[in-house]
């Protein structure tokens, strides 16, 4: 009886002690797009208290129409951002001192879509066609593929919607499988009315979502970053097993951010993103993956010095 009493007193006192010690570390994470199921794992980790359990106080800061995640990182408003590998490396080429601390995705969701009515059935048919491509910064890979095949196409920069494609302003649209492809479907075009070209089928299965920090942040907050990556993996694993729950969280976040949302689209996105992330927790960037993207960008910046894999990928776990 006495022992239990002492134990309780000890536990009470120590809770104060550790409470003072474990002051949660503040981290700001900025995904590279508006709220959507692409970032579900981070929302779940926050919602389920995985970050809190890891001693972190994480704020998720979404970019807006005027400010992107990169700007948040550079201005110091965000500690961690998510970027496609090609964007991360592009920034590095352009002198931003950022490093990849975890490569979550090892698959490419990039694809070209054309309406079957335009008779585009193979890459050869791309000749002389207009291809829509986002202005937001990962056009390098699609362009690399088209260049490799020496196709004569005209690129039409697009901000975000698929409307120009739907109205036949362009013949081909570059889309993400988990996002715009389904938007096209949800605008009334059936899958059998579309020709699809997955870049992964043409040797460009380039990794996409990864986490980036400034070199300084890595030096200062390595433990916290490791905790963030671990907790985020936990979030993704939980999301994979609890999709309905996850979907509700995603929709709620979109609603709060006044972003148009519908369940059908987010469900599609969550399923596809989880498929692309599989196996979850495999966060090491492979040398070969890096090399392919590096060589694509090197073509663009022949004069710039090479980025070394060891300098670029600095895993925290």
């Amino acid at each position, binding site marked *: 009886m006495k022992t239990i009493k002492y134990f309780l007193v000890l536990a009470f006192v120590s809770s104060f002690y550790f409470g003072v010690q474990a002051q949660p570390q503040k981290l700001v994470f900025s995904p590279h797009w508006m709220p959507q199921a692409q970032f579900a794992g981070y929302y779940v980790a926050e919602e389920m208290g995985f970050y809190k359990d890891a001693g972190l106080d994480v704020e998720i800061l979404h970019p807006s*129409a*005027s400010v992107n995640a990169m700007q948040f990182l550079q201005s110091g408003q965000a500690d961690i951002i998510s970027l496609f590998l090609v964007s991360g490396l592009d920034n590095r080429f352009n002198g931003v001192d950022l490093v990849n601390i975890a490569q979550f995705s090892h698959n490419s969701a990039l694809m070209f879509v054309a309406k079957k009515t335009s008779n585009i059935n193979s890459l050869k048919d791309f000749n002389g066609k207009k291809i829509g491509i986002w*202005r937001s910064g990962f056009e390098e890979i699609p362009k690399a593929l088209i260049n490799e095949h020496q196709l004569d196409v005209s690129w*039409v*920069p*697009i*901000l975000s*919607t698929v*409307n*120009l494609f*739907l*109205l*036949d*302003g*362009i013949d081909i649209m570059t889309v993400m499988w988990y996002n715009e492809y389904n938007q096209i*479907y*949800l*605008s*009334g075009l*059936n899958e059998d009315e579309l020709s699809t070209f997955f870049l992964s089928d043409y040797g460009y299965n380039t990794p996409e979502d990864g986490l980036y920090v400034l070199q300084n942040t890595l030096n200062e907050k390595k433990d916290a970053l490791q905790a963030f990556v671990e907790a985020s993996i936990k979030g993704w694993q939980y999301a994979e097993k609890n999709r309905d729950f996850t979907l509700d969280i995603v929709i709620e976040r979109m609603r709060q951010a*006044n972003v*148009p*949302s*519908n*369940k*059908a*689209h987010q*469900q599609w996105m969550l399923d596809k993103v989880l498929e692309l992330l599989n196996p979850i927790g495999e966060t090491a960037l492979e040398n070969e993956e890096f090399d392919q993207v590096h060589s694509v960008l090197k073509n663009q910046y022949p004069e710039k010095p090479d980025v070394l894999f060891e300098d670029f990928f600095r895993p925290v776990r």
Partner: protein
Amino acid sequence: MKRNTLSFRIIINVLLITASLFVLILSVYYIYARKTISEASKVYAIQLAENMEARIEQELQPLEKLPQMLSATIEMGFFHEDSLVQVLQTIVQNNPSVYGASMAFEPYFFDHKGLYFMPYAYRASDSIFTTYLGSNTYEYFYMDWYQIPAMLRKPYWSEPYYDEGGGNILMATYAVPVYSRRDNKRVFSGITTIDISLDKLTDLVSSISIFETGYAFMITRNGVAVTHPDKSMIMNKSIFSNAEDWGMPVLRQIGRELLRGESNFRSYNLRGKEKRWIYYTNLNSTRWSIAVVYPEHEMYASLTKMNRLVMLLIFAGLLFLVLLITKIVNRLASPLVKFAEAARLIAKGNFETPLPEVKTKDEMLELRQAFMQMQVQLTQYIENLKQTTADKEKIESELRIASEIQLSMIPHSFPPFPDLPQVDLFASLKSAKEVGGDLYDFFLIDNDKFCFAIGDVSGKGVPASLFMAVTRTLLRSIADKYNTPDDIMKVLNKSLAINNDSCMFVTFFLGILHLKTGELFYTNAGHNPPLYIGGNGQTKFMEMGTSIPLGLNEEYAYTCLNTQMQQGDKIFAYTDGVSEAENASLELFGEKRLYDCIAKHHNANTREIIGIMNNEIEQHVDGYMQSDDITMLTVVYNGQKREN
């Protein structure tokens, strides 16, 4: 009410027929009404949608003219680029529906203006402001409102959007390509736009209602809801995403038809349950679509309500009908019950039973008259019957007495002559129902001569019985005076034949046995030949020759036959009541069976033989009514030895 009463049956029949008729009429009416309502609803829904469409177009078309006019005037070179912002301001000022107007030029269209040149006038806080847009954070060239009309070289209605910072107003932009004359060429120069609030349109669409919960909605070219009773749908969900979320491919089908600019009126089941009707059509200007939807059951709500009332009325009507018919039928049929009661009393013999009063002059009155007639006739008939029965009973009683007298004339004590061991005799006469004419007799003429006879008078009844009595009486009186059977028969025949006006006759067998010698003298008058049963067991019908019955011809000469009887020889005599005894199948007992039976039991004594024969006859007739007297007589000669 008892199930087998007349009123029950009438009510059930009337009820069934009436109810069936009601159901039939109601069904026909219901089907017809449904069809009419369905068609009327369709017309109504289409009209609603088309009115709505016309009003929306009425709103939009004048607005479309603004950038078109502006575009045309710019092309004609009326405005200097620096005055454009005032022109735009005037447009916004003069058109309350317009929230903003712009003229966005192609990159470096005016060298001195740089990459971007986009004068813009907009309404905010009840004032009109002007500004120049375009920067590296507002690269308008890549925005849908610019890029799409620029590439398609066609005016373009943008997808609706929420105006950021503009009080969450749902807006849409109408964009028109602008051209200029440069070096005598028509070159594409940029896009002129107006931003309009969709509030008026959405209010218009939202105000439409049909039936109880039917509504109208508007969707964009991409299928996204612009108006919907469920606010969470607006700008979030599309007809295609709902098709996925609700597992309703039909919505996708409708959406695709709308994309193709088709209009249609059709039904679908909302999430596999409620059936709904929808009419949808495309707006010419924006290519957005409007639809009118209503649940089927609401369309028929008034009909269902009315049906319920009609059913209630029919039910009440049928109930009233039942009560009415019960009352009427009971009133009409009540005398029947009384008649039945009266008939039961009459059947018990109370012919004076009063009949129920009938006031109507219908079949019931006829029934009463028939009953009255029946009462009268029954009374008369019963009176007659009583008289007849009394008479009959009197006659029957007299006949019974006659029969008793007749039977009493015949000797009944057996053995008849215990002191006379040479001969033994047993006889029986079983009368039929009526008094018959059979007879037998035996007596001693003197110490040596034993006389026995059997006969059968023609016909039946009292005359036969009287004739028989006469025959027997005559026989007794004559037998004393003559020694031989033929003499006796001659006299007897003569006596009977004289004054026999009724032509009656009697078949007769008469035998005289000389006790000392065993010699038998006998004469037959048309009677069945008796059986001779020898002591050695040999049995045969006795030789008779031909003869006629007594009483027919007074001069007829009967012959005498004789035979020597040995000790133990027997004679079995009988009337035709034996050989002609009938069973239910009208089969006669027959002389063959008679012969066989006697031959089989030749050793039996006189009493036993008659007993056996009686059994045999009973077996044959098997309870069938006896129609003639059955008379049998057996004589045995015991011979002289017994004397010692």
